[in-house]
C-alpha cells in the first residue's frame, strides 16, 4: 500500500530534478500521441461528418462497422503492423519497425475510429438542425462538412480528447511495434509496464502519476482554449 505514496514521492523527485530520462520519455509520449491524435482528427472528423451528411447504400452498416472498430484490440493492431513493417514484411524496406513513426502509425489506427465515431454522433445532431438550410443554399458536400465541423467544434473537442486519452495510455500496440527500446522508443506507458514487470511498483506508479498529470494538463488547456471563444449557447 505504501507504494502509492512512495510513488508520489518518486514522481515528485523525478519532476523537480527534471530527471533527463523522464524528460526524454515524457516528451516522446507527448510527441507520438499528439501527432497521432492530430492525424486521427484530420481523418476522423471529416469522415464522421461525411457519414452524417452523405446518404449511400450500406451507410448504417458502415457506421456500425466504424463503431465496432473502436474495439480494435491494441495488441492485434500492434502485431499486424509488426508483420507488415518487419524486414520480411511488405513494408520492411522502409525500416520503420521500432521507430516512433511506427508507434504513431499504430496509434492513428487505434484512435481514428474512436474520433470518427464520436464526431459522427456529434455532427449528426448539428446536421439535423442545419439540414434544410444547407440543402436550400446548395452547399457542396465539402462545404457542408466544413460548416458542420466548424460550427460543431466545441462538441468535437470531446472526440479529440477521447482520442488523446486512448492514445496516451495505450501500451499494447506500441510495445510491439515500438519495442520499448531505451532512449529510442520508450514512452511513459511502456516504462510503467517495464517497471511493473521489474516489481518496482513505486517507480511504476510514479511514472503513472506523471502520465495522468499530463492527460489532465492537456485536457484543461484544450478546455481553456475552447472556452476563450465560446458562444452564448450552453
Amino acid at each position, binding site marked *: 500500500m505504501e507504494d502509492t505514496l512512495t510513488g508520489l514521492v518518486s514522481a515528485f523527485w523525478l519532476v523537480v530534478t527534471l530527471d533527463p530520462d523522464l524528460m526524454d520519455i515524457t516528451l516522446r509520449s507527448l510527441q507520438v500521441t499528439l501527432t497521432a491524435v492530430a492525424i486521427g482528427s484530420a481523418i476522423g472528423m471529416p469522415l464522421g461528418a461525411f457519414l452524417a451528411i452523405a446518404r449511400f447504400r450500406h451507410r448504417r452498416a458502415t457506421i456500425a462497422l466504424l463503431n465496432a472498430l473502436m474495439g480494435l484490440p491494441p495488441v492485434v493492431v500492434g502485431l499486424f503492423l509488426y508483420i507488415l513493417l518487419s524486414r520480411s514484411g511488405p513494408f520492411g524496406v522502409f525500416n520503420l519497425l521500432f521507430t516512433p513513426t511506427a508507434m504513431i502509425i499504430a496509434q492513428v489506427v487505434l484512435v481514428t475510429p474512436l474520433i470518427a465515431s464520436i464526431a459522427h454522433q456529434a455532427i449528426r445532431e448539428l446536421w439535423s438542425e*442545419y439540414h434544410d438550410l444547407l440543402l436550400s443554399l446548395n452547399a457542396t458536400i465539402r462545404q457542408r462538412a466544413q460548416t458542420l465541423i466548424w460550427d460543431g467544434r466545441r462538441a468535437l473537442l470531446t472526440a479529440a480528447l477521447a482520442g488523446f486519452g486512448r492514445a496516451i495510455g495505450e501500451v499494447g500496440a506500441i510495445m510491439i511495434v515500438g519495442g520499448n527500446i531505451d532512449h529510442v522508443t520508450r514512452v511513459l506507458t511502456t516504462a510503467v509496464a517495464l517497471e511493473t514487470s521489474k516489481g518496482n511498483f513505486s517507480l511504476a506508479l510514479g511514472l503513472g502519476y506523471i502520465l495522468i498529470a499530463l492527460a489532465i494538463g492537456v485536457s484543461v488547456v484544450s478546455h481553456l482554449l475552447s472556452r476563450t471563444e465560446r458562444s452564448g449557447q450552453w
Partner: protein
Amino acid sequence: MVSLFPLHIKEAVVRAGGRTILGPISLEVKGHRATLIIGPNGSGKTTLLRLIHGLNTPKGGGLIWPVSLEQARQRQAFVFQTPILLRRTVIGNIAYPLELRGMRRSTAREKASAWAQRVGLSAMADQPAAVLSGGEKQKLALARALIAEPDLLLLDEPTTNLDGRATREIEEILQQTAAQGTTLLMATHDMGQAERLADDVIFLFHGTVHELGAAAQFFAHPQTAEARAFLKGDIVE
C-alpha cells in the same frame, strides 16, 4: 440568362408518415409575379413550397423547369417557417450564402452589414444569432435569403412574428424585389397581407389545389364554398 419560368408541376404527390400529405397537384407557376399560397393548417403549404424547392421529393409526378435542375436550384432562396440559424453571429449568418459562392469574406460581410441595416438588425450585428428575439430571427432569415439575389424567392409565413411596422417594411422590400424581377411564392395566414402582395392566389385544401386564380378575383368572389368559409375564418370541413 434563361428564365426559370414557367414552372410546370405535373401530378406531383408527396407522401410521408405512410399517408399522402400533398397532391396529386398539377399547376403552372408563372414568372415575375407574386403567388400567395393560402389554406388551413396542415393543408400542405409548407410541403408545396418544399416540393418546389427540391427539399421534398415527389412520390409520383414531378416538376418541369425550363432550365437544368441545378440551374433551378442555384437561383432560388427559401425562408423557412421557423428560421434556421447558424451558430454564428448575425452578420456571419447573413454573409454565409455569399461565402458559399466563394465571395471574399470581407466583401461578403460588407454586403451582409448593408442588409442587416436594411432589415433593422444593425444594432445586434455582432450578437450570436441564437439570442435574437423571435421577430429579429425572421428578419435575419429574410436578409439571408435576399442577399443571394434569387430569381425565385420562396417564403413560408415569413412575417408572423413581426410587429406592424416591421411587417409593412418587409412587405415593401418584397415588393421592390418583385419589381426587380424576382418571382415570389409565399405562404401566409394573414389575409390582409395576401391581398396586399398577391398577383395570383393558390388555395390549398387537404393537400390539393382547391381553387386558384388572380388575387383580386379570388378575394372578391371566391368560387368554392371552402374558400369562402376559409376567408371568413369559418369552420372548413
